[in-house]
């Protein structure tokens, strides 16, 4: 399929303003924006999509430039494929530093007000953060939707697992999920309907996963009087694998490969480039350009709906009609080149407005527009998974550094009565070694050469000993909502276009820290069963360093941004309703992770995508 964004699909500021007939203005071209556009166009609607970044990656050449940017960046940081753009900046880890008490870091794009520094990021480019997401796609658990009721923690959702289960299926089709339902049906896992299978068979577990499983299978841990058996289970993932003939009642599934290519068929099956984050070189991993390609084809070939895309268009203000509270337009700053702040300001209009700029930017835009909502909750309850990493060397060669970033993990501690006292977690086994924790493999090489004084044969042996044995467990820990964890804006801090930047104040809740402390203990237990030489070390100089009950940990951001405009049962306890429609502004939808009142222990995108289908139905109803 082609992502044929030819000139007729792009619009100009002049046209976008002049054309008053849009059914919907969608801000953002990420997962959420693309799915909403696809659902609306399918029903013949006309859509204007605003994208803050230039859209160079619409061609294979442009996409490959991103890959090359990554190759030539010696730091290989996870935003390195994506060029700097002061007009629509994004968070970048190298700009972070540890904060002293009371200190604020204003050098990073997200003003870090502390006390905890978040290294989570998102990508402002065509395709949004799906350009560099890892694409793990577990569903949330039914219990995650009612943690207040069950565990006296966090907030209940106004809807339950069963309400969105069919939408999970839609999301899994759209994102092209490979997964092994049989291995994921276990007490305490997400319930799948009878006979359900994923579009593609599960990706094989890595050799490393097998080695870990061999060491822990059949053992268990005790937690709050409960015995929890351990084993390595596969993760479902939105990357192409072997199509499952049994999918869709035997109709099967056709994977969607690279979309912006000309006469090149690639990406219909993952090859194991081990580079899912920050960019899959062959597009075997889902990115929302695939959904956009579908929208464009629908427009062109099936004559269904119409999408116009306005690139380099930064939504800057949501304008409100004071009489009825409806949104009357979105003010957009359209710049000429990323290198210069020169821009023109226009206002675009549609019947409904859909903001899909992800939790931080959506809150930023609403607050910058002076719209904290009647509950005052815009920006509040910001959530993100807290990660702690534990790493060591396996006794045998396990062939680390091969396969997609993560194929397997330990999923049996995602739920249990213990959630009354401490946060649950899921555990990833990283196929890409200690990279996340220590900068491996480069840091290992430089230390073996510079400090170990090795060269020649001993160096090669040293590399095998150090790298091929690496095991890194990443614990993804539940973080309950808290109103004081929040995004704000401040006119002091703006970007090149004069848009206010997001400010983040965050403290990792004690409940989550208890989970983190247990995670560290758990890792020690697992390591002892595996005979792992534990190399975990938390550095007090690093920005994520937190002391809990006298012990230091490094907490890393999970890149799973949620909760800045949570959904609820009334305009007093939430910002949006169960359709992600703003309580205050009847023609405004805030779509994305921000609507989620809890985060649980699942990577968030399948849930975000599922909610999009629900919202799209409401939008279509409203438009009809």
């Amino acid at each position: 399929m082609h992502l044929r964004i030819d000139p007729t699909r792009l619009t100009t500021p002049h046209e976008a303003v002049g054309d008053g007939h849009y059914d919907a203005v969608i801000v953002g071209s990420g997962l959420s924006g693309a799915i909403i556009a696809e659902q609306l166009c399918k029903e013949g609607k006309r859509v204007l999509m605003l994208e803050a970044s230039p859209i160079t990656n619409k061609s294979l050449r442009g996409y490959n430039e991103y890959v090359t940017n990554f190759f030539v960046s010696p730091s290989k940081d996870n935003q390195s494929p994506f060029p700097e753009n002061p007009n629509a900046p994004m968070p970048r880890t190298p700009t972070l530093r540890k904060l002293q008490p009371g200190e604020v870091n204003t050098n990073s794009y997200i003003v870090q007000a502390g006390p905890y520094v978040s290294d989570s990021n998102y990508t402002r480019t065509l395709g949004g953060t799906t350009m560099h997401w890892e694409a793990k796609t577990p569903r949330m658990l039914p219990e995650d939707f009612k943690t207040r009721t069950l565990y006296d923690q966090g907030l209940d959702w106004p809807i339950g697992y069963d309400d969105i289960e069919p939408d999970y299926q839609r999301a899994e089709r759209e994102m092209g999920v490979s997964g092994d339902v049989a291995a994921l049906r276990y007490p305490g896992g997400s319930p799948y309907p009878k006979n359900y299978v994923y579009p593609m068979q599960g990706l094989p577990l890595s050799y490393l996963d097998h080695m870990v499983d061999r060491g822990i299978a059949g053992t268990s841990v005790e937690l709050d009087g409960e015995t929890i058996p351990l084993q390595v289970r596969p993760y479902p993932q939105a990357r192409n694998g072997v199509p499952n003939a049994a999918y869709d009642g035997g109709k099967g599934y056709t994977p969607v490969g690279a979309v912006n290519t000309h006469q090149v068929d690639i990406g219909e099956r993952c090859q194991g480039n081990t580079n899912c984050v920050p960019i899959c070189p062959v597009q075997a991993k889902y990115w929302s350009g695939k959904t956009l390609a579908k929208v464009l084809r629908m427009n062109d070939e099936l004559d269904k709906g119409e999408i116009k895309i306005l690139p380099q268009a930064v939504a800057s203000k949501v304008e409100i009609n004071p009489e009825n509270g409806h949104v009357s337009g979105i003010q957009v700053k359209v710049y000429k080149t990323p290198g210069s702040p020169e821009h023109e300001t226009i206002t675009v209009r549609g019947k409904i407005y859909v903001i899909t700029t992800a939790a931080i930017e959506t809150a930023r835009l609403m607050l910058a527009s002076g719209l904290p909502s009647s509950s005052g909750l815009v920006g509040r309850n910001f959530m993100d998974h807290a990660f702690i990493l534990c790493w060591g060397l396996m006794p045998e060669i396990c062939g680390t550094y091969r396969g997609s970033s993560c194929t397997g993990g330990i999923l049996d501690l995602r739920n249990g009565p213990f959630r009354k006292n401490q946060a649950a977690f899921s555990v990833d086994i990283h196929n890409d070694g200690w990279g996340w924790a220590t900068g491996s493999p480069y840091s290992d090489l430089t230390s073996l050469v510079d400090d170990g004084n090795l060269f020649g044969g001993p160096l090669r042996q040293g590399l095998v000993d150090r790298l091929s044995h690496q095991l890194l467990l990443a614990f993804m820990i539940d973080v309950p909502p808290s109103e004081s964890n929040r995004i704000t804006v401040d006119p002091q801090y703006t970007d090149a276009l004069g848009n206010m930047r997001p400010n983040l104040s965050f403290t990792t809740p004690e409940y989550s820290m208890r989970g983190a402390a247990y995670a560290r203990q758990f890792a020690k237990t697992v390591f002892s069963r595996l005979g792992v030489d534990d190399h975990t070390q938390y550095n007090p100089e690093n920005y994520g360093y937190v002391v809990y009950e006298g012990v230091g940990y490094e907490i890393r951001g999970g890149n799973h941004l949620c909760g800045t405009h949570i959904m609820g049962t009334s305009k007093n306890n939430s910002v949006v309703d169960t359709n992600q429609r703003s309580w205050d502004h009847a023609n405004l939808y805030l779509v994305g992770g921000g609507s989620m009142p809890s985060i649980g222990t699942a990577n968030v995108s399948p849930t975000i995508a599922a909610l999009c289908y629900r919202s799209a139905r409401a939008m279509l109803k409203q438009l009809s």
Partner: protein
Amino acid sequence: MDSHDIATLESLEEHLFSAMVLEHATLPAYLTALYSIKPGTNQDASNILRVVAVEEMLHMTIAANLLNAIGGTVNLTQTGFVPSYPTYLPDSIDDFQIHIEAFTPSALETFLKIERPVYLGTVQQRVVKRRIPNHVWCLSPNKDGTTQYTTIGEFYNAIKESFIRLEAEAQAKGSTIFTGDPAFQITSEYYYSGGGKLFPVTNLDSAVQAIDLVIEQGEGYVDEDKPTGVFDQYGEIAHFYRFEQLRLGRYYVRGDKPGFPTGPAIEIDWDAVYLTVVDPKLADYPEGSELYQAALNFNIAYAQFLALLTEAYNGKRELMMRAAVPAMFDFRNLMNRLIRNPAPQQHGRHAAATFEIDATNAILGTAKA
């Protein structure tokens, strides 16, 4: 019945095995050209060569499916399976030879000849009478090899007609020619190659569909009744036209007439290529050198790969994914390494893999009868 027809099941089996030989024979040439391109340059040419090479591998697998469907035997370890380069192709006797060489204008011309389109005609027009030089392997409808098909497409058309007729004859007697073990069929689950689906061949319909896919992906049709031309009905472009784009410096887009592409321009930097020894032999490399050893190791690995494929085509389908595909990815590295090494005393030319498989088997003493 015409004397050019494939009249017996045995003859059909021979033809199908020849089809595998043929599809495979182009691979060393395409892969060498592909990897001779300096990394990061000639993106368009690289993409085209890669896609074509990958599809040849697919076609070979389809031929294996066809052969297995009628209960034939697939054996890629047989002497002569990999020709000695330069080699004639069945349709090129007295015409052109195919070489293992770098990506050059003359290599491109050869590729265009390999993939030249099918001119559908009468059976009489389909074959030509030529004298076959001694020791030249060829595809021929009759045992003495005095006639050959004019194009690969004609050859496949003859196979298709034979399938239709032999199955009709069998059906008339209440039997079928599709007596092979369905568990030998390689499907997309076992082998994915990008572009083109692998489906099981279990009856006449699937056999015809499989043959059509090979013809359309390979040479494309030029025929009034099948006005598919540059792109087939699925929007896929045939190899001939893929290569022709390189000659004409422009991509075809849908609706273009053959010879007149109107898509984006293609530029070729003929200098950004490692010029390799043409039709290299182990004997071209100093005996005992690292280069010699590496070239020999490549041949050994390749011979093992053919043995592995043979197993995979003979019921051990899971070997396709588990071993054969990783091996293919490995060859890319091994070939690249050879090509980047200058070959001593070869006038500044670089080395390349020699693909002397029979010779290697002989050295190893593992040649199978």
